[in-house]
């Protein structure tokens, strides 16, 4: 079974806005414990709605683990909501 860990951790994110597949590209993020993760690939960006609130979900990887970052378009906050480093 997929061994994902569900999280709800506010993170600091460096983002590039530029034309392309996702338009908004998280490049790296820093976790609460100070660890920095450099993103090597954005797998998919998809929108999800919480009622009328739009959240953009980014499934990304640093090559060693998969992460899910969620950007709340109303509150302008980034959260790390999933981490998976084994199956």
């Amino acid at each position, binding site marked *: 079974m997929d061994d994902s860990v569900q999280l709800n951790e506010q993170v600091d994110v460096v983002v590039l806005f530029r034309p392309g597949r996702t338009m908004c590209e998280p490049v790296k993020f820093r976790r609460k414990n100070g660890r920095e993760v450099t993103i090597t690939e954005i*797998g*998919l960006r*998809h929108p999800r709605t*919480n*009622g*009328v609130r739009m959240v953009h*979900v980014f499934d990304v990887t640093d090559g060693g683990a998969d992460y899910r970052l969620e950007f709340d378009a109303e509150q302008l906050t980034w959260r790390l909501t999933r981490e998976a480093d084994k199956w």
Partner: protein
Amino acid sequence: MAADTGGGQVVGEYNTAEPLVMHIDLNSCFASIEQQSRPRLRGRPVVIVNRATEHTGIVTASYEAKARGVTALMKLREARKLVPDVVAIESDPAKYRYVYRKLLAIMEDYSAHVTMKSIDEGVIDFKQATEMIQRRGLVEIGHEIKQRLRDEVGVAMRCNVGIAPNRFLAKTAASLHKPDGLDVITHHNIREVLADLVLTDLTGIASRNQARLNAVGIDTPLDFLAADEEVLRRIVFKSVDGTKWHRRLRGWEVDDVASQVGRVGRQYVLERFDLSRDDILRRLHHLCESVGWRMRKQGLAARGVYVYARAESGYWHASRMASLPFFSNEAIYALARELFRGAPERVREIGMHCYELCDDVETQLGLFAEELAHERAVVGATDEINTRFGERTIVSADTIDTGMYISQKIPFGSTRYL
């Protein structure tokens, strides 16, 4: 045959018109989307399940898993025996809906006549497309759509494209070379294509129809193609279906009909098989709320409720028709609960659907007008809040915690709720 030629000529009863129907099928759709979103899954055997338990059924398997014998509907624990390192991922409907919408947007760039057949396949009818589009040729457009899917969704996304004069042959063409194929079927190569298939490769021919065909000596698709229309109509299918098959195989369009919503339903395999009757009823109530919500979003009301259960003793079902249409969750559940009194013990799976659907128009029923108006106002206000803040913001107190067990499922086979 007095056939609508649709621009084609009748040569030996085959439709010789230019193939202008394109069928697009995403390969191992949900597994591919997961492999796209999580690059470390690429190249691995992946299966998508609806629940993180070993006895759950597999919804989709990746090509890597299929190559090792895993199929959809197989139990996860059986798949593990075949492929011990299989990675099971719980389904993520929001993600699949996003890819569905991207695919639909790409397809709609080429024609106004796009029909999605399910969440992972659709048809583009180019017969009324602009001359500029038609002049480019469907093969070139097919390759372009494949490339756009990779550019706009991701590099792991692949699709099969089938091109033919009608929907049936286009779908057949899309299944010839998986994954990532592009094939064209016309009256020129139909025999060569059918020679490599078996009857059950044809959409619509499963074991029962195969047996009917075998009974009159039709053992291969080529035999089927050669069969006389009257034999198919009077002996094999005993209905106009025989005529339709005769035309379908020759490239004439008989499947361009809009399907109507016949029923709305949901089912649920219990998370444990030792739940009390009250717990099972609460889950049934949750299903009724889900079905009521979906029905009302379509502007529909129902007159009938059907409830079933799978138990150790076998399949049980009951149904009832009401004299007037109903639309509220409570009305649906009241009928379902009443019916469920007759359900057997040791239930493993429950399900229900509403049928005899009709447009939910406000009726002026003198005797019940006040009660109905009150019910409609409460339901309307609840639905409005749920639309604004999320589907299960307001639910019955009875089902307040059932959502942790019954999560949203992938609407496979229908695109009505996407």
